[in-house]
């Protein structure tokens, strides 16, 4: 069999065979050779080395779903306890543990990893490239995330389950009131999972900015990619204060520092600031990618393009920015100055504007289109109904007097479940029904899908709508029971029944997924007649994504591009690019070549080598979790061993793995006027910095910002404190409201 490289290719100059091929390889087609280069290694060791975006994305999503089930079981147990007044189904202590585990699981171990899994799985195909830029970082992220999560849940086995809520307010979580290791589990196990989130965030930013198909300018980028970009930036800037806060609290608990001790110039309120400056953007960094999914699904099932693309993108970016100016609205009852509450109340209302813009854009698209009510679209309708209700109650609680009335009541529980389940879980299910055919090759069953939707939608509203009323009637959240005289028993029973109906819906989904993987209707390349690039390749897609990278000339390439034009308004004359992409589809066949493109216009910049499989990212992830786990139990020797292994792993991970720059690479460079970099993947990072956006420098910049902000706040009134270093002192004199409160 001849390879495509040996066949004449019209105007494209023949591309020479660069490596002395053995007889066996010669018999393979070009596509097979490429598949061989890009496939993950087989066997058990290969499983640890596997780094294809498909494998890592699916692993992240599966793991997140596993934690979703665990968090859901926690919730069901709580609902059984609350089904009737003064129930003795569980002890108050167990109830405290369950609501802590439920909240922490859903926020840290389900929502963010699920969205990052979506991104890693889909982005290379949606962007028309072959792989994520740093696949080894993805492997590291997954191992860190799953082991951190399992370490967190191992607290059930040890009988030391965290019990201070997902926000772990000090002084309750400090060394005096929580002297056991329960809070260390919370801080260290979730801390390491946060590292995983940041690692994946770095990779996602670089993929979106530098690894798009030629011609995919920012203005042609799918809304989904915009949403993921905003999410990834938010992860970097939101998780950093949380990591810093967790570190400081752990230092207070273990080493006797005084950050949150008011008797030694510390401040317990600072924990709330550090937590909520993470906690509020956390909500939006779940909602923003979900909104990206909605913006992808709505046009496809409305049979028209998205109404107001530019406004939707601006709204997404604005949401990302504004989400960092809202955190104090979780702290209205703390006793803040009126001026700061006014600011944050206004910000809380203003963020309704970008959310409203998007909602109107989606509704306009649906009303001016010809909707097709398939399962993904039903979940979008469910999303619109529930999210709008949650958004309205959000505007209500952003008003300070109203918030004072309903704070810590079930009204707030209802509000944020409408936002989080309505705004995140419904779109996640829509996305799973929409994209699963691309990766399994089979459609999910429609009848089971619709049953899933109706059970989930009815169950959800039955579970959470009554909570608005029980909250108004005075039912307090985070309390293990209530008295019959409060008059909320029937409402609670309805909520419990609703929760079990939702669970039945999830069970139907699992059954549907398992059934359809084998028996589902074959999907074909583009079962939904969609417009984005992932549907241009086979289902399931090959490991290399695209052999011949597409040139994008439209925001809807599969709907609007016809034929090959010589000129493109973004790229200009594309003849050379066409030739280069043709040549790239046939060479190199011995290393993983991907294309780096310009951050703004998507013009080809460089061909670089994506890292291959390696055991070291997995070892580094396992050792990192071992360090944190060892510290929970004060096994310092194990922590030191873990540090040594992490250092060795990082060296092994980055050890030069060179492919010589030969005449063939030089020939390709000269022929197509593009840099070829077969040595390593790092050049893309350097290239990205030229646009002032770079992978590893972003977390450094974030760390820099966080440490300087933190230092600045703490240093208010520093000079007097300087003189008091050597003796215990009362609280520092504070000038800055920001620090004082």
């Amino acid at each position, binding site marked *: 069999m001849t390879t495509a490289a040996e066949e004449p290719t019209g105007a494209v100059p023949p591309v020479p065979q660069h490596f002395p091929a053995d007889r066996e390889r010669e018999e393979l087609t070009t596509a097979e050779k490429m598949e061989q280069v890009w496939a993950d290694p087989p066997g058990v060791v290969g499983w640890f080395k596997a780094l294809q975006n498909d494998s890592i994305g699916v692993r992240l999503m599966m793991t997140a779903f596993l934690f979703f089930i665990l968090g859901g079981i926690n919730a069901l147990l709580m609902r059984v306890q609350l089904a009737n007044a003064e129930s003795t189904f569980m002890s108050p202590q167990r109830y405290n543990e369950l609501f802590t585990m439920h909240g922490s699981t859903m926020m840290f171990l389900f929502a963010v990893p699920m969205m990052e899994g979506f991104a890693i799985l889909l982005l290379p195909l949606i962007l028309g490239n072959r792989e994520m830029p740093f696949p080894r970082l993805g492997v590291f992220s997954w191992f860190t995330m799953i082991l951190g999560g399992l370490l967190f849940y191992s607290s059930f086995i040890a009988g030391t389950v965290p019990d201070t809520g997902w926000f772990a307010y000090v002084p309750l979580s400090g060394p005096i009131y929580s002297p056991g290791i329960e809070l260390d589990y919370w801080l260290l196990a979730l801390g390491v999972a946060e590292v995983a989130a940041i690692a994946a965030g770095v990779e996602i930013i670089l993929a979106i900015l530098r690894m798009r198909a030629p011609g995919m300018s920012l203005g042609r980028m799918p809304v989904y990619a915009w949403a993921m970009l905003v999410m990834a930036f938010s992860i970097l800037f939101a998780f950093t204060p949380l990591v810093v806060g967790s570190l400081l609290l752990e230092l207070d608990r273990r080493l006797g520092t005084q*950050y949150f001790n008011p008797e030694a110039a510390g401040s317990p309120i600072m924990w709330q600031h550090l937590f909520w400056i993470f906690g509020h953007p956390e909500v939006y960094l779940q909602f923003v990618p979900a909104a990206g999914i909605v913006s992808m699904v709505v046009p496809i099932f409305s049979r028209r393009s998205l109404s107001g693309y530019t406004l939707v993108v601006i709204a997404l970016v604005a949401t990302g920015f504004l989400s960092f100016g809202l955190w104090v609205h979780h702290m209205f009852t703390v006793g803040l100055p009126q001026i700061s509450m006014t600011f944050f109340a206004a910000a809380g209302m203003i963020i309704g504007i970008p959310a409203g813009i998007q909602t109107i854009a989606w509704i306009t698209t649906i009303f001016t289109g010809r909707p097709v009510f398939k399962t993904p679209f039903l979940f979008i309708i469910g999303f619109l109904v529930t999210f709008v209700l949650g958004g309205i109650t959000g505007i209500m609680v952003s008003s300070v007097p109203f918030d004072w009335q309903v704070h810590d009541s079930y009204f707030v529980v209802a509000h944020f479940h409408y936002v989080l389940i309505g705004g995140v879980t419904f779109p996640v299910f829509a996305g799973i029904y929409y994209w699963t055919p691309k990766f399994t090759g089979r459609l999910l069953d429609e009848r089971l899908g619709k049953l899933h939707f109706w059970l989930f939608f009815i169950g959800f509203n039955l579970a959470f709508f009554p909570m608005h009323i029980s909250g108004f009637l005075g039912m307090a959240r985070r309390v293990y029971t209530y008295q019959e005289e409060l008059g909320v028993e029937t409402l609670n029973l309805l909520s419990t029944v609703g929760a079990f109906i939702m669970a039945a819906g999830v069970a139907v989904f699992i059954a549907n997924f398992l059934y359809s993987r084998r028996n589902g209707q074959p999907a074909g390349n583009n079962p939904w007649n969609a417009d984005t690039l992932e549907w241009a390749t086979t289902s399931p897609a090959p490991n290399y994504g695209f052999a011949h990278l597409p040139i994008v000339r439209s925001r809807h390439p599969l709907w609007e591009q016809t034929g090959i034009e010589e000129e493109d308004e973004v790229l200009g004359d594309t003849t050379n690019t066409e030739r280069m992409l043709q040549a790239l589809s046939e060479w190199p066949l011995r290393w993983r070549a991907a294309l780096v493109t310009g951050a703004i216009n998507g013009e080809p910049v460089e061909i670089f080598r994506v890292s291959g499989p390696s055991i070291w990212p997995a070892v580094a992830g396992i050792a990192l979790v071992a360090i944190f786990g060892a510290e929970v139990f004060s096994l310092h020797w194990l922590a030191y061993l873990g540090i040594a292994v992490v250092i060795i792993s990082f060296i092994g991970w980055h050890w030069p793995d060179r492919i010589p720059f030969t005449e063939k690479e030089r020939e390709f460079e000269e022929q197509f006027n593009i840099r070829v970099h077969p040595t390593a993947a790092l050049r893309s990072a350097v290239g990205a910095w030229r646009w002032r956006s770079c992978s590893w420098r972003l977390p450094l910049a974030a760390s*820099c910002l966080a440490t300087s902000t933190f230092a600045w706040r703490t240093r208010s009134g520093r000079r007097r404190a300087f003189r008091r*270093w050597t003796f215990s002192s009362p609280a520092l004199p504070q000038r800055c409201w920001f620090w004082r409160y």
Partner: protein
Amino acid sequence: MWGAVSDVRRGNLRRLRLGLLLTFLLGAAALGIMIWAFIELPFDWRVNAYASLFYTLGGYMLLLLVIALGMNLFVQVWAWRGHYTELDHTAVQNSAWFVYAIVAFWIITFGILYLTP
């Protein structure tokens, strides 16, 4: 470090090695001074929040410096083994960016700790 990167861009590998070595020595000296300053501090981290902050931020800077020296060491080994060329020296550039970032961190962090009111 800046000189080392400029030299490797021009293909002057001998000056690259010297630049990396000089960076390492200066970094090691800074590390030594920092450790000495920590030993000499007249308070410990348990006294009050400011003392805790001083130790935490100082320790963080120390950690970054150790990482930078580790990176420099490996880059230096590869430089002496002749791995880099004027076209292929990404690791040198990355190591340089890390050093620049640390310098920026130092200025911000210690500026705040020592100089601001």
